[in-house]
């Protein structure tokens, strides 16, 4: 297991002249020491590495979900297709939805929030770094567990929404729905735990002077998102446990013959499911609230309104869930109430759209790839939002529901909203993370191909939906008028695939070019506004040399620029004088640990045990038990543990024996 070299030179010299030996490794419970290579990634607790891991995994799952989408489109390119039979199709569309929502969009949001939120509030890391690493491995193993179902008797086929009683063993006899319940329970643990972490980080670890109303809009949107996760995930956790127990342990929560009401599942699921869609979109709203001001060279228009509209969306999102149940039989009074609340959630969303437009108004716009994607989000989300308002009118929704018109709506808001926002963020923050930019030329191809592709794919879905093509159907007959537009949609889907290919080429070729030509992007390549740009690129492992004291919103910008009498910015300091040097002296980093990945690995074991053989579950339980003990008993590697920490200032220097401190004061460079 752990190999910690015992320091062979003199122990740490303290100012007082006394010496203290570093903690001796307790054998199996010692801390890992690698700072490079794959093992450093497995044991890292650095929020930046966790963010990169989330992002890379999400992109891998995006390719899987994308292939599922292409299979769907190939099956539906003409009537009575034979690419997939009904049973296969039902698994593919179910997994497409689960993958895209839980394994792509949520983790992409987590990637950005993990990487940026500590930096944007001026912190060294999140509040609970080992828990953060655990969140990531838990998510990854949950996603792999879910996808292992393809090879172990069939994937879930009840739809991502898994309505009871179709999901009970009589109607879903394969193990697919057990993989669904357990897989999402595992990824749900990841989300819940990660949310607690980031909420505490924002509340407790902000730099001095950074009041809540001086946080960047991205951090605010991230904060609201994490609060939504904290309260929404437990609801689906309960629902999934009820389903798991019905299917495996003879419970009757959704057994109609025993007196249950199937609507219980729907209420629980959508109480989670509606806040979930705001969890999906708010991070991207936050991203473009950073990029649009930078590329318009103006501050975000109406900062307090942007913050409060985000809070309003988060809050009001709890009052609309039964708009997914207008046809379910909740009665006309409930339908009327939810119809009205659903309409009014358009108000704060509209405020955001208009504020982004107003930010651009009068601005000096540079259409970098990031800006293209940001503006693309504004346009595409508006389309999706307006079709959403048409669903809020519930009599109309009784015609639209479960047709492709709904599919069009949510793809415009999730693909055209969340995903375009994530691409905007990737092009923007790539130099911060990796030290070089992605190619703008390939980025432009990526953007235009994906914009055209998505509109060709999801635009006609409005039409066929209104023509009556239902969703979740493995085929359609000739004579209904669906044929032509379905073919266009399939062509559009392959254009999206081409765009994603261009993006991947961009990722790899930009990296190769940067290595070959030793490109370093330097400080602050975009002339940005927020604190994460006040450190070198790529971000040093320790984040800030010294904790910045914050006096303004857009603190970094205000250190570079003052304003003249017309309100126009005037340079007051050179960028390189403002950006910190990247000197890690005196910064204590949270130590790496094996236990997060070990604990995370126990969970799928328990899952396989519930499905196949309780022996696995026992083994998983043992590993879990061992892991929690290990996490609790592993020593701190802080060499100053022997003396109190009340004298931390910039001159605090216990560096003479720096060579021995490599294990914990390591500079973890982002190894490729």
């Amino acid at each position, binding site marked *: 297991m752990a190999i910690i070299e015992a320091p062979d030179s003199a122990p740490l010299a303290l100012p007082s002249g006394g010496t203290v030996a570093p903690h001796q490794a307790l054998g199996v419970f010692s801390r890992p020491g690698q700072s490079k290579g794959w093992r450093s990634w497995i044991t890292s607790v650095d929020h930046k590495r966790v963010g990169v891991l989330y992002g890379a995994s999400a992109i891998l799952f995006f390719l899987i979900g994308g292939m599922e989408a292409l299979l769907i489109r190939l099956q539906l390119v003409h009537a009575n297709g034979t690419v997939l*039979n*009904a049973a296969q199709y039902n698994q593919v569309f179910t997994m497409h939805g689960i993958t895209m929502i839980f394994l792509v969009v949520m983790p992409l949001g987590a990637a950005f929030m993990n990487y940026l939120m500590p930096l944007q509030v001026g912190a060294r890391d999140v509040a609970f770094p080992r828990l953060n690493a655990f969140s990531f491995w838990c998510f990854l193993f949950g996603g792999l567990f879910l996808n292992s179902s393809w090879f172990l008797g069939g994937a879930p086929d009840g739809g991502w929404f898994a*309505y009871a*009683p*179709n999901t009970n063993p009589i*109607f*879903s006899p394969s193990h697919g729905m057990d993989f669904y319940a357990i897989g999402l329970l595992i990824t749900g643990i990841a989300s819940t735990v990660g949310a607690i972490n980031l909420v505490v980080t924002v509340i407790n670890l902000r730099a001095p002077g950074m009041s809540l109303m001086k946080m960047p809009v991205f951090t605010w949107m991230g904060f609201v998102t994490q609060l939504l996760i904290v309260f929404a995930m437990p609801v689906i956790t309960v629902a999934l446990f009820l389903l798991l127990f019905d299917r495996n342990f003879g419970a009757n929560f959704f057994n109609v013959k025993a007196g*249950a*009401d199937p*609507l219980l599942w729907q209420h629980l699921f959508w109480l989670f499911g509606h806040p979930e869609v705001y969890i999906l979109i708010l991070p991207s709203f936050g991203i473009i609230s950073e990029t649009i001001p930078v590329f318009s*060279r*103006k*501050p975000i*228009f*109406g*900062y307090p309104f942007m913050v409060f509209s985000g809070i309003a969306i988060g809050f009001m999102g709890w009052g609309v869930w039964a708009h997914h149940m207008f*046809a*379910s*039989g909740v009665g*006309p009074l409930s339908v*009327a109430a939810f*119809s*009205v609340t659903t*309409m009014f959630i*358009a*108000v704060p969303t509209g*405020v955001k759209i*208009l504020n982004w437009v*107003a930010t*651009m108004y*009068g*601005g*000096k*716009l540079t259409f970098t790839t990031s800006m293209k994607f940001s503006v693309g989000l*504004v*346009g595409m989300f*508006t389309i999706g939002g307006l079709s959403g*308002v*048409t669903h*809020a*009118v*519930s*009599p*109309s929704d*009784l*015609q639209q529901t*479960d*047709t492709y018109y709904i599919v069009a709506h949510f793809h415009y808001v999730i693909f055209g909203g969340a995903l375009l926002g994530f691409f905007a963020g990737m092009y923007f923050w790539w130099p911060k993370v990796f030290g070089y930019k992605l190619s703008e030329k390939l980025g432009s191809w990526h953007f235009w191909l994906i914009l055209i592709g998505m509109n060709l794919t999801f635009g006609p879905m409005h*039409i066929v939906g*209104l*023509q*009556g093509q*239902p*969703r979740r159907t493995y085929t*359609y007959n000739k*004579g*209904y008028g669906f044929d032509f537009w379905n073919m266009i949609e399939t062509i559009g889907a392959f254009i999206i695939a081409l765009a994603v290919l261009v993006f991947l080429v961009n990722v790899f070729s930009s990296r190769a070019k940067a290595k070959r030509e030793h490109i370093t992007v330097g400080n602050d390549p975009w002339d940005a506004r927020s604190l994460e740009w006040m450190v070198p690129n790529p971000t040093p492992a320790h984040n800030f040399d010294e904790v910045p004291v914050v006096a303004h919103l857009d603190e970094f910008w205000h250190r570079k620029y003052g304003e003249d009498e017309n*309100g*126009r*910015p005037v340079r007051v300091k050179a960028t390189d004088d403002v950006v910190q040097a990247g000197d890690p002296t005196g910064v204590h980093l949270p130590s790496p640990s094996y236990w997060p990945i070990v604990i995370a690995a126990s969970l799928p074991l328990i899952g396989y045990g519930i499905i196949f053989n309780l022996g696995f579950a026992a083994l998983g339980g043992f590993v879990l038990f061992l892991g929690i003990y290990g996490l609790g008993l592993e020593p701190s590697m802080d060499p100053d543990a022997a003396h109190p920490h009340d004298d931390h200032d910039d001159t605090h220097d216990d560096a003479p024996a720096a060579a021995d401190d490599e294990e914990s004061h390591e500079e973890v460079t982002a190894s490729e």
Partner: protein
Amino acid sequence: MRWMRRVALIPALLALSSCSGTKQDIFSPKGSIAKDINDLQVKVFIAAGVVGVIVAVMLAYVIVTGRRRGKADGDEEPRQIHGNFRAEIAWTIIPFVILVGVAVPTVTTILNISHRPANAMKISVYGQQWWWSYEYDLNGDGTPEIVTANELVIPVGVPIELQVQSRDVIHSFWIPALAGTRDAVPGRVQILELEASQPGVYDGQCKEYCGLSHANMRARAVALSQADFDKWKEGQQENAPTPAAGTAAAAGLDTFKTKCASCHQINGVNKIEGQAALVSGHAPNLTHLMSRSIFASGNFSLFVTNTQGQLVFNRNQLEAWLRDPPGQLPMAPTEARGMPNLHLGDNEIDQLIAYLQTLGPYPAGAVAPGS
């Protein structure tokens, strides 16, 4: 600027119009409930379209002017405007007011379309994997006099109250020309009001994912004039004729009794208890099979039109179905959901078809067997 808005309406209306005139489109109401919905939704779509055009124009404007400014040679930076309180209040209040304008007719329409007229004709609609059945309790005594499948036959101009139910999982009954959809939830009776305004045939299908063959769970409403409906009612309440002894049809009836009657019903022929039963407990009632236009969850036509404009029995399709039902539509017979392959011999199929062909009355214009 108003002319721009009017011009912008044209593509919106064009798009809307391309959405109508097809079999299941939601903009061609043929009944009062669907019409109430349509009157509201067309207005809402147009309003949404107008808002969309306004936002698009604003976005295009800031893009074009800002880009021009961004490419300009001068170094002049933009004024760092942080916000405008009045604008924020305006674009909070104005959308709010617009939405109130949408909310009020919405609530009115919701209440209108869910109103249950006292004189409505009540029909029970049952969803089960993967077909629709309809039961008419004409005298209100609790037992249905008429049990049919696939096609819901109703009189024109009479309010109908559908009592939508399920015998297994959640389904959703939808005939867009007549009304919105209503879920069929096991353990519940859910009400859907509709009323056809003119005679016609209106297509629909199940709209709540219900498993393997959800895509094939079709429905149809057939609206008849009152006179035709009364005639239909009479015809449906007769028992099946007993075929003459020694005919192929008589042999077919024997085959039916041994191979089919554990699931299917024919009025006057006893259902066989105790044999393999379906999870939902029901298969279609076939007593007046030949009075229908579709079979097998509405996926196949019972009659095709010949060159002389007559309706001719679609024997080939029914034979293919009887030969191998799971080969025609995906089903799960090994799990007691859907019709199994009974491995019927050619003789048995011929005899069964001969018997089924006696189960009239035939629709007007159809060529009856033997002629």
